[in-house]
């Protein structure tokens, strides 16, 4: 985060009530967003959520039906793409197949800058050094691996020192290991050049690890904007809670409030305590109760304890599935009509057997209420 000296080279982006439709279907519906200068912002959402359309609007490949885009407080409504001074990395890299690596990287310089040949050569060499590809400059794109093409695309996008860099799912075509390596690489390059980055991805872990700010999009609208940890810890709606990280979402009705303790009733009648909601709610309302799997402690039910089935911060259920994920075992536990997710450390996994009765406990602060809206993937937690 410490790049105060560089932030001057990033543009500030403002989207004002952007609207774009294809026929009857809104692809981007009333999207407003402020991107601070020099920030790394991700547009995150499932396919069809409007993130790529938003990016293409910023690039100028599409014209908004309504609304405005301001780059450094200047409307770019009438500015064609080639005059917006933007760099872009495309999903399929879109390197020019008939040009060498050096010519690909030098393309923006030939088109838009008034550098002399020697200056341009020097700049290309600098960029290739930045992406660590100096030794490949006479190769053609088809002679490069996916990761190398990705780096060339980065160098081409940044060579003319644009104040804004757009990236459209740039790592989608790479395998997992290379993807993680490139994430670090892109962060490093971002820190060293200080350009504002708008990064489109459907991969939540990518968005969370790389971004200063994440914009979650859903059905052409913004579902929530926030720093990665805030989105994870305090989602404001069930869609974000479900989309980011693993989650348990239980359909509940609010029963009553005693001081700071809210009591809600799950489908099968059990009463559960929850933290105070961040939205206006009162007794009788329906809501979703969110508990992250890692916030739940699980242990097998002991016969002697004779515990009550579902009360306060505790639920009893039956273990349906146990799967190994390296560092943890993931458990699926049937409680009433819901299938809840929990985790146990690798060394504890052996003490859980499918079919066993399980006690789940959590702190009431970890049980968060979210408004009941139609925006959630309702069937996600239902037991088969």
């Amino acid at each position, binding site marked *: 985060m410490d790049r105060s000296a560089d932030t001057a080279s990033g543009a500030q982006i403002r989207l004002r009530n952007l609207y774009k439709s294809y026929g009857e279907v809104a692809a981007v519906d009333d999207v407003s967003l402020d991107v601070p200068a020099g920030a790394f912002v991700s547009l995150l959402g499932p396919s069809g959520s409007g993130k790529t359309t938003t990016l293409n609007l910023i690039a100028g490949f599409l014209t908004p039906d309504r609304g405005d885009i301001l780059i450094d407080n200047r409307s770019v409504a009438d500015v064609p793409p080639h005059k917006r001074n933007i760099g872009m990395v495309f999903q399929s890299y879109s390197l*020019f197949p008939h040009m060498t690596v050096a010519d690909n990287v030098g393309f923006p310089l030939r088109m838009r800058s008034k550098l002399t040949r020697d200056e341009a050569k020097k700049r290309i060499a600098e960029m290739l050094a930045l992406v660590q590809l100096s030794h490949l400059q006479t190769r053609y794109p088809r002679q490069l691996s996916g990761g190398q093409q990705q780096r060339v695309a980065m160098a081409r996008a940044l060579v003319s020192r644009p104040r804004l860099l757009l990236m459209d799912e740039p790592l989608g075509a790479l395998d997992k290991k290379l993807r993680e390596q490139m994430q670090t690489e892109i962060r490093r390059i971002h820190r060293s050049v200080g350009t504002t980055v708008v990064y489109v991805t459907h991969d939540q872990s990518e968005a969370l690890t790389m971004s200063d700010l994440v914009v979650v999009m859903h059905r052409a609208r913004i579902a929530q904007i926030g720093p990665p940890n805030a989105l994870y810890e305090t989602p404001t709606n069930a869609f974000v809670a479900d989309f980011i990280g693993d989650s348990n979402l239980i359909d509940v009705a609010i029963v009553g409030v005693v001081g700071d303790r809210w009591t809600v009733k799950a489908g099968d009648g059990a009463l559960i305590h929850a933290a105070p909601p961040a939205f206006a709610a009162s007794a009788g309302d329906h809501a979703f109760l969110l508990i992250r799997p890692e916030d739940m402690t699980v242990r097998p039910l002991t016969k002697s304890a004779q515990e009550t089935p579902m009360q306060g911060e505790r639920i009893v259920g039956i273990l349906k599935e146990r799967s190994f994920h390296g560092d943890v075992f993931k458990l699926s536990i049937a409680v009433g009509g819901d299938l809840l997710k929990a985790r146990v450390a690798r060394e504890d996994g052996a003490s859980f057997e499918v079919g066993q009765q399980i006690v789940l406990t959590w702190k009431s602060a970890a049980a968060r209420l979210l408004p009941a809206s139609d925006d959630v993937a309702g069937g996600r937690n239902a037991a088969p």
Partner: protein
Amino acid sequence: MTAIAEHAPPRAQAVQPQRAMPALLLLPALTWIAVFFLLPLVLMCWRSLAADGYSFKAYWIVFSSPLYTKVMLTTLESASIATVLALLLAYPMAYTLTITRGVWRGLLLMFVFIPYWVDIIVRTFSWLILLGDHGLINGLLRKLGIVHAPLPLLYSEFAVLVGMVQILLPLTIVVLFGAMLRIDRTLISAAKIHGASGWNAFRTVFFPLSLPGVYGAALLVFVLSLGFYVTPALLGSPRQTMVAQTIMVEASELLEWGQASAAGFILLVITTLIAAIYNRYFSLDRLWGGSDA
């Protein structure tokens, strides 16, 4: 052992029909080509060598005769000019097709194809009506007072080229269009976002990437042009005689089958050579939409 021996034959039989299947499917077409194309070709080659005892005499005549040299040069010249003109006219049209969508593209394609579906002889005859001394063009020019005597449009190299280009255009457009469609449009977006104006994006990215298609179309059109018969026969003067006409005259009027066969065989070799050279450098697969690799 016995168990294996008993089980092995059915397996082998099960595999056999699958292997035989492609051959069976190819058989009718192969038979057709063998009987009606390859066999006549072999006979023609045979005749060119055996017309007058066994010798290369027919070839020697073809190569040494000033008539054949002249006709061959005329053929190469007409074919080259027609190819270049067809490409120049087809390129903007094919490009327009790639950037239009839906109904407009369909309409434009229809205008390309309608002449293609009309018989070559009919299309060539229509030029007689347009270009003749009392034809539409001369009539109009005279009515407007631009000329007093009719321009000698017909029976000239000009008329032959006009006719050839018109016949070659639809194919040229379709081949170029196919090649252009395979150019990734996001490359143009990539050029634009990195500072290229529309013209620069075309000049530095689209045009170079369309060149393989241009070479492919050039090959096809040139090879086709070499064999033109009806168009120079109807629209040209004897000066524009192309090799196919000479072969026809030799074969059907002078009954010099040996020389006709030799000339035909030489034309075939030239055509094959051009295709082979193209294939060596550009790979013929691309014409049919194969990969560039």
